[in-house]
């Protein structure tokens, strides 16, 4: 008999792998990608393909240069590419998209050790880098593609910046338009319907837990109402849906367990509304998630799960 394999238990392994989780995320993002092409036309597809291709290439080259095992196959770079594209305006110069992809993969992901090691969400941070590097093109919003018109796309404000700068409280937002996404904004953030379909798919497939999205959205709604804003508008406008379902749930940069996830999501929600209400930026989702990413280790340090049956630690020093 050949020598037997001796290894530590368990001798069984589940079927989930990093690769098929990432594939599920890609499937979950597909409705949003399709919606973006329908809403903004074929140029949206160009932006998405540019971002995916440059992310994959950046990952491949950086692993080669660093002489590390190749990780393109886990598909996480494809997810980053799609998420970045969905966070860009359709009129973006493709070279800027490439710049963003390289920043996301090389600087934010690979320089910190690759998958599982980045401390902030690569796609979101790349968006922030692009916003600060190229403020004008990054906020050049195009109205939804008008299939009946022959002229070039019309420049417009996003509903959120409209609310902020035009300051026209009388013009009630059209919720239906917000829900379907037929308005100005980034590629993937406009169509709430498509994002919710993708998010529900991920929850059903148990790729993400509903804890973060539900808490995040609920916090935004409650806090928005408290400040006298329009909660439904706040939920549907801007990048909130995309952020709540696909960005805040990023494994690497969000907490590992239930209680810390609740704190994380509440923090995201509060920051989002604070930025929208008091900040000079029209949109607060990217910053709020990235800020909460940064304090995730801190949350995990203070909000700990208690081991099975372990008695509660008594706080305070008692009679000293």
């Amino acid at each position, binding site marked *: *008999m050949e020598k037997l394999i001796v290894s530590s238990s368990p001798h069984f392994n589940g079927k*989930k792998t990093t690769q098929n*989780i990432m594939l599920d995320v890609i499937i979950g993002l597909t409705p949003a990608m399709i919606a973006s092409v329908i809403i903004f036309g074929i140029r949206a597809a160009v932006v998405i393909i540019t971002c995916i291709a440059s992310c994959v290439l950046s990952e491949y080259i950086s692993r080669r240069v660093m002489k590390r095992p190749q*990780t393109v196959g886990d598909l996480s770079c494809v997810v980053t590419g799609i998420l970045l594209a969905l966070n860009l305006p359709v009129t973006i110069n493709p070279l800027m998209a490439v710049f963003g992809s390289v920043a996301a993969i090389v600087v934010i992901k690979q320089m910190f050790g690759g*998958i*599982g*090691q980045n401390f902030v969400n690569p796609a979101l941070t790349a968006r922030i880098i692009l916003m600060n590097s190229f403020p004008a093109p990054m906020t050049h919003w195009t109205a939804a593609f008008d299939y009946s018109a022959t002229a070039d796309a019309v420049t417009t404000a996003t509903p959120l910046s409209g609310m902020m700068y035009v300051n026209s409280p009388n013009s009630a937002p059209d919720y239906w338009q917000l829900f379907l996404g037929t308005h100005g904004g980034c590629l993937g953030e406009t169509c709430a319907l498509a994002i919710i379909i993708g998010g529900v798919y991920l929850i059903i497939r148990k790729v993400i837990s509903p804890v973060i999205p539900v808490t995040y959205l609920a916090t935004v709604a409650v806090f928005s109402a408290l400040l006298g804003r329009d909660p439904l508008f706040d939920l549907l406008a801007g990048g909130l849906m995309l952020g709540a379902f696909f960005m805040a749930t990023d494994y690497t940069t969000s907490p590992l367990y239930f209680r810390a996830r609740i704190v994380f999501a509440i923090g995201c929600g509060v920051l989002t509304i604070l930025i929208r209400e008091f900040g000079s930026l029209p949109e607060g989702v990217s910053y709020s998630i990235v800020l909460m990413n940064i304090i995730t280790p801190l949350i995990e340090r203070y909000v700990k799960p208690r081991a099975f049956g372990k008695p509660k630690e008594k706080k305070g020093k008692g009679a000293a």
Partner: protein
Amino acid sequence: MQEFPKHPFRTHGGAPVPHHKNTWNAPSAVLPPPERVIIPMQQHIGAPCKPTVKKGDHVYVGQVVGDNDAFVCAPIHASVSGTVNSITKVLLTGGQMTEAVIIDSDGQMEPDPSIAPPPPIKSKKELADAARKAGLVGLGGAGFPAHVKLNVPDGKNIDTLIINVAECEPYVTSDHREALENGKNVLDGIYKVKEILDVHRVLIAVEDNKPDVIQKLTEIADDPQKDPKDEVRVLALKSRYPQGAEKVLVQACTGRKVAPGQLPADVGCLVMNIASVSFLASFMRTGMPLTLKRVTIDGSAIKNPQNVIVPIGTPIKDVVEFCGGYKSEPRKILMGGPMMGIAITSDELPILKQNNAILAFDAREAQQYETTACIRCGRCVAACPMELMPTKLEKATEKKDVEALQELDIMTCMECGCCAFSCPAGRRLVQAIRLGKSYVRKAGKK
């Protein structure tokens, strides 16, 4: 009186492991006397026994061949009649060398003439003594001497007896067959233990993937003569690994949590495996100590998977041969189930008291999976029934950070394997935790 739960209590985590209960439907076969048995002196948790026979001695079935005065220790008996061939050292699964008595069988299976039914047991003390005399250890896999468990300190009040028929490990069906073939015996044992320990709530906990066991045991437990107050009932558990782990089982049956470092007795529970309780009943009837064990022989490399009742000490090779031999080259042989079983180095090793299964896998199933980077998905945390953070334990182990390991309650881990099973990156979390535990133990000794 304690109330009986209608449904099991919620437990944390667990893993949806495949069941592979291929052998539940066939009656157990009885192995003919093997030519030779190897009886190691360490078949339990605790102090090893010292051989009480010497080379050339004639032994009978049920005769003591090893014992020790230590409290945490169970005597070991000859499982065949014949002549002691030699006393040598054998390498056991844990990697330790242990003395073993090797007996050449005369094929007669002649019982020790001094064996007689013990006098009726009246007190707790007598019950514990009988368990020790019988050489009984936890037959569910741990091998903890039963008399230690039954010797409940006076201050601790046991109000619930839990009979473990969860059998949550994939493949293993030996408890399943025990329930179907020896159901009456099981109930006899339960009534006896219940009476002696003065417990008025007995829960027979069965995973709901064994409806036939639930039906059969419910039928015989419903006995108005022996149990007029209906104090023995069957509780169907959710089929989710690891329902049969002691702490998880206590929680599922009573909602009580056993704190780290404590025993089920601290929350008023006593857990006994079905095979142990059934054996106690037959010991009280016949006085024959533990010499036989029902084991599930299965796995992709076994020709005719089935349950076999074998004399303890029979080389695995002989049992596999009895099951038609290997149908393909075995690459991995496990003692126990695939989640917590131990991979062994050779099929010459003997069957031990606490073995409930031998699984032999071919190359395809023995294949090692690839390990990639942790993506912090939190699946291990969600899967841990002990509510620990396996990925953090792994990282602290890599850094040899004993303080962090202790803060993360590493010693609470029972190595059930749910974390590693759930890990999409295929990380060897249990292996890392075992290493981490050894760091903590070493640091504690300094």
